[in-house]
């Protein structure tokens, strides 16, 4: 199992490096979205707006970045993978790989966004923790939704409409916590951090349990 996961992740990295335009495309997507919002907003000084816009950009970038993880796979390659590895190994490796991908995306997003739109964050460590946990959560949920959407006919539209409503609990906690980080509150709200981790654990557990029903045609 661990070996399988390791090899599958290595496989993802190799594939990603082999066609660099996909990764380059998603990174450019982040930069240009941020630039568009910079041109429309100039500097944002209201914390709530800054926060909301940041998460919306990140949400769309994540959906675009993760969507290809199953939708982009060819049928033949999936079949080959399924004969070699267990379904649990497939989903866990995809989740880990997408988490790393989203960490890169969200790091870049934060950097470019702070540069153009202005940085208002007062409690940077907390914001980074929230961003990391958010990336894990987005990655695991969107990987699973991508697997579901890839089975249907119009999968890119479906990817968005299936994921938005179930992303809400995650997103709302993330926005609340990152607002705290921006305002630089004295005490970290451990309750919400716990809730965030709890949601992450639930998503991963559900993906682990349910993916085996999803993978074979």
């Amino acid at each position, binding site marked *: 199992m661990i070996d399988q996961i390791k090899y599958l992740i290595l496989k993802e990295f190799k594939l990603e490096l082999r066609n660099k335009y996909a990764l380059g495309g998603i990174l450019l997507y982040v930069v240009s979205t941020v630039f568009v919002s910079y041109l429309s907003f100039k500097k944002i000084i209201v914390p709530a707006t800054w926060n909301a816009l940041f998460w919306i950009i990140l949400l769309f970038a994540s959906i675009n970045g993760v969507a290809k993880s199953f939708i982009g796979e060819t049928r033949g390659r999936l079949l080959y993978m399924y004969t070699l590895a267990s379904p649990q190994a497939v989903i866990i490796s995809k989740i880990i790989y997408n988490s790393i991908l989203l960490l890169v995306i969200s790091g870049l997003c934060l950097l470019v966004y702070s540069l153009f739109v202005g940085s208002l964050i007062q409690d940077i460590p907390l914001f980074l923790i929230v961003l990391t946990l958010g990336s894990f959560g987005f990655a695991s949920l969107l990987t699973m939704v991508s697997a579901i959407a890839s*089975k249907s006919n119009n999968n890119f539209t479906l990817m968005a409409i299936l994921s938005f409503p179930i992303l809400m609990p995650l997103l709302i906690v993330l926005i609340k916590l990152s607002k705290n980080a921006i305002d630089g509150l004295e005490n970290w709200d451990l309750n919400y951090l716990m809730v965030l981790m709890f949601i992450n654990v639930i998503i991963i557990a559900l993906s682990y349990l349910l993916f085996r029903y999803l993978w074979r045609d």
Partner: protein
Amino acid sequence: MKQNWWKILGAVLVLYSIISGFIFPVPAQAILHETIRNLYFHVPMWFSMMTILGVSAVYSIKYLSNSKFDNDIVAAQAANVGMLLGILGLTTGSMWARYTWGAWWVADVKLNGVAVSMLIYLAYFILRGSIDEEQKRARISAVYNIFAFVLYIVFIMVLPRLNDSLHPGNGGNPGFNKYDLDSTMRTVFYPAVLGWILIAVWVMTLRIRTERLKRKTLFNE
């Protein structure tokens, strides 16, 4: 007849709750006035919606464990009826909100919760519509149904801790059971809840039977 007693019970209870809901005395409250009677119609919708959506999720789990096609029919039709109850709950709630809070829609956690549930189940139906093959549709939509239902439960449990609500019992508003729900109201409210749940289940079983018949004629059995 023996199997149908609960349908009769449901109809009688709903009829009773409608009649007595309009003629029994209610406590006089500021702001609420006579709209308090909406309690008998608005609140039972949520109880029955959650029951029916729970049924839908359970049958999705059953489908995944034994792949019997009948379980998929139940799951889909339960989700259908759940949506109907959600729309009814939203309509009655919206009217109530207009006369007590002054607007058809207010920014409130419970309203956001129900909006999200509507989005989830609309997405569920679109997912079902976009897969042609029957077995595959049943399997994929069952996975989504379970995934979404669990996250929805998390959502409605997490959300109220984040914001205050205008609803009774939240954010410093007195709960209905403390002062307002006096013993007369209880005698109408509890039967109404039970009655509407039974009626919802009845509607669901009718839909399931129609679907089964449609399938039967389709396959000339």
